[in-house]
């Protein structure tokens, strides 16, 4: 009896995962069909376009590029997902990571440490700076009740100007006669080694590790439980003695800390400095869509980030075959929209089904007893 029960349980949770996976795959296919129609309307052959994408995407070169492009997306999406887990919308990842990039790149030039410690130092400075920038929104919310959506969006703009000012006034390295629009380069001891020379940086491993930590902390730890409970039903959580304000503060600090890592693949893995034009932007917003697509689950986020990385990596090739590369952005956007819609619909159907089954099986238990 017991065995039966536990095997039934396993099959239940398996079915749920399959349900989620199946609907995500279906959504991606549906999105490709919709994009195909769009391509047809613009007079391009969708099969050729998709063929090109596949053809170029399946080379090992492109595979590494996919992982490389996925790395910052993983950090960014996890930063967003931490907030989402307690119904906090951290739209400010963009500002948090750019601020963290500047501060950590500059601090990294002022210390001399042996290699692993130097890298660790920069990563920690980046996380602390990201968290510090996010703490502004947290404090505003806790003390004045200001909605974090508004404050984090506004803080993005503030961050951009603030960073520019600090950079121009204090941190810009003018040793090159003004041609070098960057901070001073970080010494070799502070650089994250490449996994595959010039193709994939070690930050990818850090990203996977952060995804794993996210799972442990949010889904398995006591703190994570309190965080999720506060998101699922803030009033019940409060009634059960989980301090709401403290959870908001911790969640946003944690989110900001992970956000601080977004630009690290560039800062310590590629350019070895911060520069307004060399440090990549827009990952904060891409992270929101990746988190949505991955349904805030670490595994889903990693897969979704790779999908986006893959699509990004093919855009250059498309242009060569006279297909507008913006079709990639269109595909990405449509995938997200379709996934959100399909997932919502399928989880509703799924929930209805288990509700029915539960009602019935408890009834059959009733009859037996």
């Amino acid at each position, binding site marked *: 009896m017991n065995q039966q029960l536990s095997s039934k349980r396993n099959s*239940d949770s398996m079915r749920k995962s399959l349900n989620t996976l199946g609907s995500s795959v279906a959504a991606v296919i549906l999105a490709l069909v919709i994009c195909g129609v769009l391509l047809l309307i613009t007079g391009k052959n969708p099969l050729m376009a998709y063929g090109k994408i596949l053809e170029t995407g399946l080379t090992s070169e492109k595979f590494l590029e996919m992982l490389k492009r996925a790395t910052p997306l993983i950090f960014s999406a996890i930063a967003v997902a931490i907030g989402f887990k307690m119904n906090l919308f951290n739209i400010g990842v963009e500002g948090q990571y750019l601020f963290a990039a500047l501060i950590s790149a500059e601090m990294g030039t002022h210390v001399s440490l042996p290699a692993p410690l130097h890298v660790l130092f920069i990563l920690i400075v980046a996380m602390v700076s990201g968290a510090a920038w996010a703490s502004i929104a947290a404090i505003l919310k806790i003390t004045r009740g200001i909605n974090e959506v508004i404050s984090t969006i506004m803080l993005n703009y503030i961050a951009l100007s603030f960073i520019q000012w600090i950079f121009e006034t204090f941190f810009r390295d003018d040793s090159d006669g003004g041609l070098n629009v960057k901070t001073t380069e970080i010494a070799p001891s502070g650089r994250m080694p490449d996994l595959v020379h010039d193709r994939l940086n070690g930050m990818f491993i850090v990203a996977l590790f952060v995804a794993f930590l996210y799972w442990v902390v949010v889904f*398995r730890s006591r*703190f994570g439980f309190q965080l999720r409970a506060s998101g*699922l*039903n803030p009033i019940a959580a*409060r009634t059960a003695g989980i301090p709401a304000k403290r959870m908001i503060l911790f969640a946003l600090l944690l989110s900001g800390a992970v956000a601080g890592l977004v630009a690290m693949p560039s800062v310590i893995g590629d350019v070895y400095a911060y520069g307004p034009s060399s440090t990549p932007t827009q990952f904060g917003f891409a992270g929101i869509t990746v988190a949505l697509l991955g349904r805030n689950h670490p595994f889903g986020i990693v897969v979704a980030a790779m999908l986006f990385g893959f699509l990004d990596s093919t855009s250059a090739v498309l242009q060569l075959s006279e297909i507008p590369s913006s079709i990639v952005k269109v595909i990405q956007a449509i995938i997200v929209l379709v996934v959100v819609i399909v997932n919502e619909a399928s989880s509703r159907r799924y929930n209805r089904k288990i*509700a029915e089954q*539960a009602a019935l099986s*408890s009834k059959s238990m*009733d009859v037996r007893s």
Partner: protein
Amino acid sequence: MQSGSVKPKLNSATDAGRVVELTNISKSFPGVIANRDISLQIDRATIHAIVGENGAGKSTLMKILYGLHQPDSGTIAINGVITQFKSPSEAMAAGIGMVHQHFMLADNLTVLENIILGSEPTKYGVLSLGDARKHVNELATSIGVEIDLDLPISDLGVGQRQRVEILKVLFRGAEILVLDEPTAVLVPQEVDELFTNLRKLVANGTTILFISHKLDEVLSISDQITVIRQGSTVATVSPKSIDRLRLAELMVGSDLPSHGERTTKVGEKIQLSARNLTVVAKNRKNPVQNVSFDIFESEIIGIAGVDGNGQFELCEALLGLVDTQGTVEIGGIDASNLNVRERLDQGLAYIPFDRHREGLMLTASLWENALLGHENSLSRGPMIDVESAKKSCREIIERFGVMTPSELVPAFVLSGGNQQKLVVGRNLATAPKVLIAAHPTRGIDVGAQAAVWDEIRRSRDAGMSVLLVSADLEEILGLSDRILVMFDGKISAELDPKKATPQILGKYMTGAQ
């Protein structure tokens, strides 16, 4: 699930007074029969009650009538015509309207806007509110409802919101009204008002199906009562020919546990003490003013009162959820400056007023719900001890008879009674010193109610002190060792339950004395 062998019947149009006739309805889901050969005849302009425990098959039957499910076999005849509803809109078109237990109203819209929402009357494509207003006013007057159509829903009380729901269904032309547990959310006075309205509705020719498990109400309002148990109709009786106890036994299918006098004694030690407790509110009168009381070991104090007289705020104050003046002592320790978690750690437990709002995470699994508030004891270091948490949830399920396939299903799949048992179990399982139980049996059936009462009594006998807040006078009178009446934020009387009667209580509760 095809609608298999639907047998046409030719003789069903014979009785003109028969509005709804369900014949041999069966519905099974894979493995289980939900409805078995149910037959039901409902006469025009009557109130027909359908009673049964949670999960007896009432809701499946109503879903079939409302077009949400199709029966495997059997027929539905409306006004003598055999019909098949493939969707609720078809049922609505046939004049069947449903008022759900949980209201579906838009808070920011006015009463009128809510009523017409979804079937807005238009003239040349333009919304014509004037006609709608006239029609709604006529409807309201005809059933004796007085309501300001221009108030936003957020300004209305529960009773009035329900009236809006009823008007909404009538506005769509319903002649057969299905009311799902309409009194679960109402206080006695509101129930009386509702019943007055319902009687007027019936006088106007509307037929009402009244789903409930509050037997006194069913006995007082219905013309006919059909009892459903385990998917089958047990009996259809006239309220004149049956009493409450017999009806309850029909429903449960066995003798009810009787609750005799308590055999244990109230202890000597004060477990919970409130002194001059005042809840300070901005922009309105302080909802709790200078409330003082002591609860001894092994004692149940009942707080009687009409909802909204400060009971909710009093519980929040005792838990430490709101700013207060005055002192609270738990187990002899001054808790006035402790936060919620620290008070819970002192041995306080709380069964909240509204299990959905304050108690449960509906989309989370049962074991996570059982874990809420007990994370500290079910952890190993900083990590949740998932296995222990699941085990402790299974123990709650077992001990409190929560009917569920496993502890892994999300909380929303359980019926209200089983959800409540889980909440009660979560709070009693740790053997707290003091339990604040707010409406511990609201909206659950007699079987579950008896189980919850038994558990509270058992814990009391083991030494637990209870502050029981309830609007159910039977509950208050049956469980309490002392009764405090709360009116307008103050304790207006202390009564001995042996001498108190519902009438006396009613006087103090409404401030008449």
